[in-house]
């Protein structure tokens, strides 16, 4: 899975095998997830086709669909990021980056087999059960070992880094070490987050907490891979971190307990996130990014603003009551994962791999097919969610409007799948046997 791109000045340029294989594996999981998603959308409009599936029923495929997108597509690019930040692509750990990525994919294969065979924890997005509940955390631990070794090597022989960077990386390692154990424990049948009694969903405090976690990641990532280009506007940096700390304190003050979204503290807490609709774009504009990232960076920021604003609105009393359990919130989730996060991951991968990533993601048609497909899906789901809020039977009682909505979902899914196939084929083109020949040539030349 080694990637090579042609560079006009230097001939063929090698891309880090760890990062490029993380990108390729991520895209492969995205393509698989989208293929399954499209199949599920078709099954909704043609339920008779469900008999094709035999034991591998709709519900089981749904688990595979959601988990491979979350733990495959959304996670692997961030692993590439971690390789870069911890310097794992250099020295003795370089040869272990790609095996770590393969291991991650192996765990997802094991998980997919377990979901298809009917093993599930019953917890959405924490569906690790049986053997895969052990295998996946073990894989995470293996990845942690690679990062820890790279960190130790970096501290011992690498260029002198600032104490803040070393401390941050060490803190990051401590947090990452906890993740496998958290995943294992949280996937068990016991333990369930606090509930909003009026909706059955998460509380405002819980939403605020997880959103701040995402904001924390968004603020940290540029520090690991980009430099500041606008010293005159540096004030945004402390401002963003101060706001984050204040909101974290607010979150702590709200306390963890079952609580309704109608309690002012809960919805005001979530509404306070609106500030990030402006702060994150300003924060990201501080940094110098590769020119090739411009398209996806813009898309990410546009999706981010939409996500934050719609998220705050969706949680308001009255609005959440109407949208809970409906297509509207599914559309919101898609705004987060398919819109915002996907654009972000493409942007980060291009930043990490330069020309290689640009060749993967920067085709014009697939960029628009993806983003417009997601946008159409989100708009459709918001409208149908609004209808469903007043008429819960809308999605499961036949009718022209329902059927048209389902068919539009198929079309938008097809657009997204076509885009991901384009990225997959681009990845294959850059890692195929013809590239292996180039690889040999490069190696010979280097020797």
């Amino acid at each position, binding site marked *: 899975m080694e990637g090579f791109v042609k560079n006009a000045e230097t001939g063929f340029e090698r891309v880090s095998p760890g990062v490029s294989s993380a990108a390729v594996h991520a895209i492969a999981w995205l393509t698989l997830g989208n293929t399954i998603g499209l199949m599920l959308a078709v099954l909704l409009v043609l339920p008779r086709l469900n008999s094709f599936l035999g034991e591998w029923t*709709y519900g089981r495929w*749904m688990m595979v669909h959601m988990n491979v997108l979350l733990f495959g597509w959304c996670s692997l690019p961030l692993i590439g990021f971690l390789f870069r930040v911890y310097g794992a692509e250099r020295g003795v750990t370089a040869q272990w980056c790609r095996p770590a990525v393969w291991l991650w994919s192996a765990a997802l294969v094991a998980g997919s087999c377990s979901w298809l065979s009917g093993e599930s924890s019953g917890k959405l997005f924490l569906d690790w059960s049986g053997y895969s509940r052990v295998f996946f955390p073990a894989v995470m631990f293996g990845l942690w070992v690679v990062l820890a070794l790279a960190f130790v090597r970096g501290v011992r022989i690498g260029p002198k880094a600032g104490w803040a960077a070393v401390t941050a990386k060490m803190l990051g390692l401590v947090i990452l070490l906890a993740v496998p154990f958290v995943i294992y424990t949280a996937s068990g049948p016991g333990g369930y987050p606090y509930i909003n009694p009026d909706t059955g969903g998460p509380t405002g405090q819980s939403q605020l907490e997880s959103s701040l976690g995402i904001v924390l990641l968004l603020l940290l990532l540029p520090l690991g891979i980009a430099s500041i280009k606008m010293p005159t506007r540096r004030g945004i940096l402390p401002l963003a971190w101060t706001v984050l700390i204040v909101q974290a304190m607010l979150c702590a003050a709200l306390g963890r307990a079952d609580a309704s979204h109608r309690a002012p503290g809960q919805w005001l807490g979530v509404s306070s996130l609106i500030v990030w609709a402006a702060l994150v774009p300003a924060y990201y504009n501080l940094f110098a990014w590769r020119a090739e990232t411009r398209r996806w960076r813009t898309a990410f920021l546009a999706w981010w603003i939409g996500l934050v604003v719609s998220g705050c609105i969706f949680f308001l009393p009255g609005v959440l009551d109407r949208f809970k359990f409906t297509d509207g919130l599914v559309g919101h989730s898609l705004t987060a994962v398919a819109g915002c996060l996907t654009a972000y991951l493409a942007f980060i991968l291009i930043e990490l791999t330069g020309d290689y990533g640009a060749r993967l993601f920067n085709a014009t048609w697939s960029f628009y097919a993806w983003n417009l497909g997601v946008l159409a899906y989100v708009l459709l789901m918001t409208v149908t969610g609004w209808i469903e809020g007043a008429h819960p039977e809308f999605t499961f009682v036949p009718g022209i409007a329902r059927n048209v909505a389902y068919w539009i979902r198929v079309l938008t899914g097809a657009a997204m799948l076509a885009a991901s196939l384009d990225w997959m084929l681009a990845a294959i083109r850059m890692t195929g046997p013809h590239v292996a020949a180039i690889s040999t040539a490069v190696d010979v030349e280097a020797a």
Partner: protein
Amino acid sequence: MRRASERLDGWRGAALVAITYVYFLIFAQFAFLARLGECGVAETALKTVMAAMAAGGVLFSLLTPALVIRFAAARLLRFGLAACALAALLSLAPLNYPAAIAVAFLAGSGLGLLTITVVSHLPRWAGRRNPVLMAGVGAGIAYFICNVPAVFTASPSSQALLAALLCAAGLLLPAEVAETEEVPAPAAALSFRLALLSFAALVWLDSAAFYIIQHTAALKAGTWMGDLHLWANACIHLAAAILAALLLGSRRVSLVLAAAVLALGFACILLHRPDLSLSASLFYPAGVSFYSVALVAYPAFLSGSVSLRDRARRAGWIYALAGWVASALGIGMGQHLGEVPVLFVAIAGAVVLVPALLILLHTRTREAAVAALAAVLAFIVWRMLPATPIAVPAAAAERGRQVYISEGCISCHSQYVRPGTADQLMWGPVQSLEQVHQQSPPLIGNRRQGPDLAEIGSRRSPLWLKAHLIAPASLSSDSPMPSYAVLFRDGRGDDLVAYMASLASRDSAQAQMQAAWQPPEIAWQSASADDGATLYKRHCSTCHDSGGEVRQQWAAQFNHFPKDPPAMHAYAGKHSRAQLAQVVRFGIAGTDMPGHEFLSEGEIASLAIWLSQSPAQPLPLTTETH
């Protein structure tokens, strides 16, 4: 102009590949056999006739390489197309045994000449921009056409005529193109011997599976059932062919062949059970299209051939041995064994996959070793963990809860009735948070693609639940709910029903709330008996009409046999419309009569009005949409 010409070049190649494949699929493999049957050629005579076709095919596959360097491409192409068209036309005549042999030999020879000529010259005819894609598009279109219901179900004579007409159309395609300098071919994407073996294994599998499906009524019914199914097959073929072409464009021959053998092998194994033939029909077309594109693209572009003659020679061997001989062997296997043995699937899989796996292991030794080691270690740890829940819950409802989790019901159904909302009357009563937290884990879900199930046991009887899980559309017309009949082959379905039936709190306040409900005045004003009659047909007749699907299927298991329309009207005469509306909306507790919470107030009022009216005209006795 030059660009337009280049584009035309590409489509010329695609069209020739499509014509060749359509001829082979719809005539040589299909219509001709049926025509022979119509002419009374059967048993041993049939085998001889087919052997004549194979002999013609093998002979001209091996002869044509010598011809391609002596004769112009256009001339050979015309000869091949004309021979094929003539054979198809001759097959329309009443054939006796010797005539059948002659026509079969002509068809095989024409096909041999045509395939080798097309493949040998494809680099010229498939354009420069994306020749492999053009080959894939041609193959995909051919499979698509053959699966179009009108073509697939046409009479053998019509199919033969179509094949002849397509060949005639091929004669009109300008075949001569300007001589272009032979571009030095890159190294073979897969060694020729391995490719030959792989193609032979794949064609053998395909031919055996095809023959078995054709000659087993249950499998044929399961794999080609109805127009929708044929359109689905056509789309799968086309999509797989294009995908294969895109992969082959990146020289991923091993990957494409591996995908083909996995799909075909899996389909062959599924075919062992006729009840799984529907699933097999999902994988079979994908596998076939994958290798069919490779069968054209490999000898034409990816075999590392250094000259036209070399390319023709390799194509000749592939089509003679892997195409004709392996196909005959596959048919023989189908005839004698009636199934593709698992051992043979394993051998075919090994032939195709092992070289690819060895290459992978050679180039990715560290990755494979780490993954294997970690998998084993994780397995050991998992087995050593004391908390590994192996024990099967004793109670049916507990086991059913596990089935609910395993099947991912949570993806579409919530179990949470929101207080103070319309949920409460529709799906209530509300559970306390303490009750929810006591569940391990709570199954609240986050999405309703179907109704909330927190109190499903209060609203539906076990019989209703079972009938609905087996055939959702029989009770809820056009329901998007998938059938879970598969769960009732063992005890899982009954366990699931037991679990769902247990989701009932029998709350008296809820019963009072339902008893107090009646449609608002505005609903009565907009309601009509005509609407009620339509709604009856749609939602009620399946249980209440004498010919209703559910009534007939589950007749012996109703705890209160559903009233027929006269009895319903008699019952209605003793109750007020408001009471009837409550029955329609909430059902009758303790019976199999379900509620219809999803109907609007106006619809419920219409049904109540219709029920309360004496039948002035004959009542509908047949179901409309179940």
